């Protein structure tokens, strides 16, 4: 339950936040560079009251220091833009053609059509680049001291030297990063530790669903560039046909049902006024739930569902809403409600991508609660239904962990071997190798 925040707490909380920001530690290199810059400037300042002989006394060392400071002063990289006009720090690719940005040390960015970025800061060892929308291919030249940062929404990619594609969908709030060469780290708003990536891996982040996934790019079907189902769902993307087949509940008795059918059978004119009204209501609720989910108001989302009736939602909500409710319930620890939603997804949208993802999430939920046997079963279910699915590597790793804890190292090692065979550079490869080496 929310309580009204009192005035003193508001001021104290805000000033503490501002203080924290104001006193953020400064990079020692930046401090030293600022010092050198100040000293160089100071030496150019006329010593107004100093006698002439004293000025002469100091002229030689002062000049030496000034020259040294000038020589040591790191020079920021320069860059040029081909294919578009530079608008302050902004680079926008027109709808008709891509744009190339080349930095003086050789790093290059290739913006797809209609992509937009902001070069926020350029230093001697790299730059901080914000991708505002669209896709760009990045090639960072590795040097002894390199520090490049690429920001896509709340996701931050730290790079030493590498080549990757970065795609930020500002509408769906999803990021898709495909690493071709080298290694890098991704900071996600959902975790404190950076996610390390190696060549051949793909990072998928979904702000609305508060999810991040690393998959092996190689396991994707050639030419398959679409986002996984949960990301597609986040964009209001397609849902499988079984989902639409399951929306026959009576709109008169189920507040979710008519909206569900109208919404998911998008494009099919129902010709019913109530259906159109419900469609609007459904759209409004979906937007509202996604907004609540995105802003972290999980309890409010669950509370809204409760006020409408959990049972009605379980039988009438769309797969997207069920998934939103399941996520919100998981985040606030209502694992029972989360399970109900995931089971409803399995039951009502059988054989769909949402159903398979629900199997994986059930595995995760049971693993977190210590029910390892059940977790292993659900991981197995996911792997059986979608052996090359987007979450297959994660499911196999979960199965490996559960098997080791349940039946000991040899059981875990057998799955570790299978994991390494399928994903030799996967994110859990290190764990698998350690398991085999024990």
């Amino acid at each position: 339950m929310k309580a009204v925040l009192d005035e003193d707490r508001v001021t104290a909380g805000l000033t503490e936040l501002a203080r924290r920001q104001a006193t953020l530690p400064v990079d020692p290199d930046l401090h030293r560079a600022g010092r050198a810059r100040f000293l160089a400037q100071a030496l150019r300042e006329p010593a107004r009251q100093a006698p002439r002989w004293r000025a002469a006394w100091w002229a030689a060392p002062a000049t030496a220091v000034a020259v040294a400071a000038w020589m040591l002063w790191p020079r920021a990289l320069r860059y040029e833009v081909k294919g578009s006009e530079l608008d302050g720090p902004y680079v926008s690719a027109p709808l008709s053609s891509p744009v190339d940005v080349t930095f003086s040390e050789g790093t290059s960015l290739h913006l797809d059509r209609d992509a937009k970025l902001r070069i926020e800061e350029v230093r001697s060892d790299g730059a901080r680049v914000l991708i505002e929308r669209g896709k760009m291919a990045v090639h960072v030249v590795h040097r002894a001291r390199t520090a490049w940062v690429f920001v896509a929404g709340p996701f931050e990619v730290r790079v030493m030297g590498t080549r990757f594609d970065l795609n930020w969908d500002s509408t769906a709030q999803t990021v898709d990063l495909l690493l071709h060469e080298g290694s890098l780290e991704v900071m996600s708003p959902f975790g404190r530790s950076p996610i390390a990536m190696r060549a051949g891996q793909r990072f998928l982040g979904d702000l609305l669903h508060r999810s991040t996934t690393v998959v092996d790019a190689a396991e994707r079907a050639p030419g398959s560039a679409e986002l996984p189902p949960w990301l597609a769902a986040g964009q209001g993307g397609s849902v499988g046909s079984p989902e639409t087949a399951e929306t026959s509940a009576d709109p008169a008795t189920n507040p979710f049902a008519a909206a569900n059918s109208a919404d998911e059978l998008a494009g099919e004119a129902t010709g019913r006024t109530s259906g159109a009204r419900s469609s609007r209501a459904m759209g409004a609720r979906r937007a509202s739930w996604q907004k609540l989910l995105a802003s972290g108001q999980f309890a409010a989302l669950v509370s809204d569902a409760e006020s409408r009736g959990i049972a009605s939602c379980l039988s009438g909500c769309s797969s997207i809403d069920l998934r939103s409710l399941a996520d919100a319930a998981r985040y606030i620890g209502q694992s029972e409600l989360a399970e109900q939603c995931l089971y409803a997804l399995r039951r009502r949208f059988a054989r769909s991508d949402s159903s398979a993802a629900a199997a994986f999430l059930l595995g995760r939920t049971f693993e977190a609660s210590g029910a390892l046997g059940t977790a292993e079963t659900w991981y197995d279910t996911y792997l059986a239904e979608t052996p090359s699915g987007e979450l297959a590597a994660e499911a196999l790793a979960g199965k490996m962990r559960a098997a080791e804890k349940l039946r000991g190292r040899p059981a875990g090692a057998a799955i570790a071997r299978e994991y390494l065979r399928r994903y030799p550079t996967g994110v859990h490869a290190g764990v698998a190798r350690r398991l085999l080496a024990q």
Partner: protein
Amino acid sequence: MASHLLPRTPAHQVARFPYDKLGDAELVEAIRRTRDPAVLGVVWDRYAELVRSVLRGVLGADAAIEDLLQDVFVAVLRGIDTVRDGARLRGFLIGVTVRLAVLELRRRKIRRWVTLSPDGSVPDPPIPPRDVEGREALRSFYRILDQMATRRRLAFVLRHVHGLEMLEVAEALGVSESTAKREAARGKEQVTRLAMRDPAIQHYLEIRRGDHP
């Protein structure tokens, strides 16, 4: 003590008293006498962090802070002869910082740089991106500060964000202690009133308090 500061003594005969052990009054004296880069470096090391934090607190963290930091130290160097009491170097630095921050605020207001980037969107303060709620709350906080009169804004930030004594706030603003006290109190009242209505700030504070997971 002053004799230690004179550069006439050859370094190989008598070791120079380490500048970083000097008090502020002696540092000011040494700058006046010698403008020795070593002394200036000590002043930088001692006070750059404080000045930077005041600039960040008043203006919000952005790319212009490092340039303003340079401006403050150069201004202090130029005005070092006007420092009557060297022991109050810290207060003098804060005063210069505040004056330059006022100029910067005025400049930004004119150019609409306070909240608007060239395309009209609000720029993000450079705080850790994972703290999404904190970033949103900070944006709202600086939007509220932008609505305040400059003197009130400064009094509020110096007193409540940086925790300066009221006498220091008054000195930095060049007003009486009672005026500084009144402005800081009114600033707090205004910030609190507007913050109570701001959903981003409310959300951040609720999370911080534990209303949300």
